């Protein structure tokens, strides 16, 4: 359990020029604290948080690695949060995303990559992801924050609650699978990237997507292994960010996401309280009432 001041002191250390170590330790503190114990101030200078999501094997890590290149070559300081699943049995994890990004980190002192294990949270992100992203934003060290989710299917849409922009990565030839993700992930996506565009069926996939999502919707193609199409993807992300920052678009977007984030934290809080209220033999409605009352009472104390 860590105090607020601990995290702030580490951030201050980082800002004093003590290097990535202090920032990395602050992330560990946030990662190891339940979300309701971490209250970070709202960043004054917002940084675009990009969620990169899509089915397993679509090339998210490889694409993220290439995006590091493209952003860094354009002079941007890049942070990457790469999320991999924790084993539901042991609680452990093998985090392999860094492996695919390693070659893009050589000699780049202002790129920061952190792997996070999902630690039992659902929705293809880790429970602490939002707070870790906010911490990166607060550090003032980055111009863009890329979050690569666990391989996601239809319903893993939690990334939408914390990223400003969702880029959904898919591949040609998934056919019905494209239909399948339409209902869930597709609804929260701000743009779709058809990766492995040198594979047969790429053009059809793009056409299908344009038909179902409408002509205004941004669909682009990449060959992540070769870096093809990645500069265009960055341009689209930058354009979206500029649009969001005009007027109150970003403020409204973030307020909406903040409300849903609060709902998620509340849910986790109620669950943590509920785990301790099991001793009584109540009927269902009374048990629910009891849990909610207890959760509210504990929250205020």
């Amino acid at each position, binding site marked *: 359990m860590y105090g607020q001041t601990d995290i702030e002191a580490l951030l201050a250390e980082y800002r004093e020029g003590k290097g990535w170590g202090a920032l990395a330790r602050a992330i560990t503190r946030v990662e190891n604290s339940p979300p309701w114990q971490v209250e970070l101030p709202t960043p004054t200078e917002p940084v675009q948080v990009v969620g990169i999501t899509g089915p397993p094997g679509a090339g998210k890590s490889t694409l993220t690695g290439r995006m590091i290149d493209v952003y860094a070559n354009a002079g941007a300081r890049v942070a990457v949060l790469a999320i991999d699943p924790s*084993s539901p049995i042991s*609680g452990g*994890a093998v985090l392999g995303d860094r*492996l695919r990004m390693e070659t893009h*980190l050589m000699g780049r002192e202002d790129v920061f990559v*952190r*792997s996070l*294990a999902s630690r*039992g949270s659902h929705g293809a992100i880790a429970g602490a992801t939002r707070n870790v992203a906010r911490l990166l934003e607060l550090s003032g060290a980055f111009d863009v924050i890329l979050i690569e989710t666990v391989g996601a299917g239809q319903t893993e849409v939690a990334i939408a609650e914390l990223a400003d922009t969702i880029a959904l990565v898919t591949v040609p030839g998934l056919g019905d699978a494209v239909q399948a993700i339409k209902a869930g992930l597709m609804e929260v996506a701000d743009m779709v990237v058809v990766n492995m565009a040198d594979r047969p069926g790429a053009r059809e996939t793009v056409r299908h997507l344009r038909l179902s999502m409408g002509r205004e919707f941004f669909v682009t193609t990449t060959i992540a292994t070769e870096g093809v199409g990645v500069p265009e993807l960055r341009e689209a992300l930058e354009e979206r960010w500029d649009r969001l920052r005009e007027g109150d678009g970003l403020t409204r977007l973030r307020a909406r996401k903040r409300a849903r984030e609060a709902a998620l934290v509340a849910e986790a809080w109620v669950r*943590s309280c509920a785990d301790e209220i099991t001793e009584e033999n109540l009927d269902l409605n009374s048990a629910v009432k009891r849990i909610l009352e207890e959760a509210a009472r504990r929250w205020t104390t």
Partner: protein
Amino acid sequence: MTSSTADGTKAPPIKVIVAKPGLDGHDRGAKVVARALRDAGMEVVYTGIYQTPDSILRAVIQEDAAVLGLSSLSGAHMEYAKDLCKLLAENDRTDVLFLVGGTIPEEDGEELKQVGVTEVFGPGTRTEDIINFIVENAPER
């Protein structure tokens, strides 16, 4: 086994970097160890083959790892271990548990420890021994 819960009552998982330095493509051992540590409830970042001391140090710092496991089957373990011990010290990371495994001749074990390696796991080591050593000695994060 360590695991993290929503209310944070249990100790968080121990974070481990498993790295293979230099021109040494034999990574089966490293992968077996990575999987065993995962099954023991640890969070293992596997950096892959052909890593340099700088890239390994970067991973240790950015991931805020408590443990660094270096797997070497090329015979170059001494050089890499010396470089990494120096880098860890320069970057205020001497508390990181630095383990070296692989084809390490017994006579090299002492010298590795003298340059700053915490423990050496040579041929024939059981994964349980590595797990127990980490659980008992890993620094808190």
